[in-house]
């Protein structure tokens, strides 16, 4: 198949960016929730015990499962609210990248232990 046959209309109308914004912001929120739950589990023996969903893996099972739950739920809610909307993507990108950066720091034990 030639390239010209692969091409279709050059400039189809842009879709609303709401679904992309929802995926991007939800990833940031899911990432920071991982760091926050990790720190909460380290700070409190009670929380640590609650987070032990699967005994052989210990609290890590609860930390990751809860963070994934927050991520997926946030994504579903934001997508439902935003999928037909055009949103200021730059602000959402900056917020999500900042959350991602903070989650790197928050999961780093010498920094997480400061809280």
């Amino acid at each position, binding site marked *: 198949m030639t390239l010209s046959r*692969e091409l279709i209309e050059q400039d189809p109308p842009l879709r609303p960016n709401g679904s992309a914004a929802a995926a*991007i912001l939800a990833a940031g929120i899911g*990432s920071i929730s991982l760091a926050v739950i990790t720190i909460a589990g380290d700070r409190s023996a009670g929380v640590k015990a609650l987070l032990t969903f699967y005994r052989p893996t210990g609290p*890590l*099972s609860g930390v990751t499962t809860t963070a994934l739950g927050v*991520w997926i739920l946030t994504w579903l809610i934001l997508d439902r609210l935003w999928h037909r909307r055009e949103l200021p993507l730059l602000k959402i*990108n900056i917020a999500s990248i900042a959350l*991602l950066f903070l989650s790197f720091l928050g999961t780093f034990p010498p920094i997480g232990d400061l809280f």
Partner: protein
Amino acid sequence: MEITTHSLWTLIHGMGFGALYLLAGSGALFAIYQRLQPASPASQSIQNNRFLGAYLSLMAALAWLSVLSGTYIIYPWYRFPAPAGTANLAAYPRALLLAHSATSGWHSVGMEWKEHVAWLVPIAITATAFVVLRYGRELPRNPQLRSVLLVFVGSSLIAAGIAGFFGAMLDKNAPVDGGQTIHITGGERQ
């Protein structure tokens, strides 16, 4: 030549899923940066965009397989507590590392960071794959979306690199070993 089942799983987790992810990552960065430029003829091709979406989906599958196998298959072997009074801690990697001040940091910093930061990888790459599959043909006209996807893929590579580095160092200092022995082939006697 023999290998234990626990060693085989660490190989599948690290050298299989993890290393393949890292190899694929540079290709994804290149593809998003180069092929989705507005001037690139490849950017307008439906087939190229579908390929990139499939490529990123495969990376997401590798990331999920890596964190799930690490967390639910290998990590329980790593953290299994040594019975009281055990003199030889070789079969208990976490206890072995924590028994010596020279190696305890590999657990308290290395493993503690690795086991959490690795989970940022599937989150970031799944979001990236979704956006490319849904908005593939529009990405050349949306530099803000392209930029954030580059940051996501780059961040996932950094997180995977951290996890891979500490995984290799942990396995060097206190390898996860044990389980059944698999005989691969016989060697020649000198």
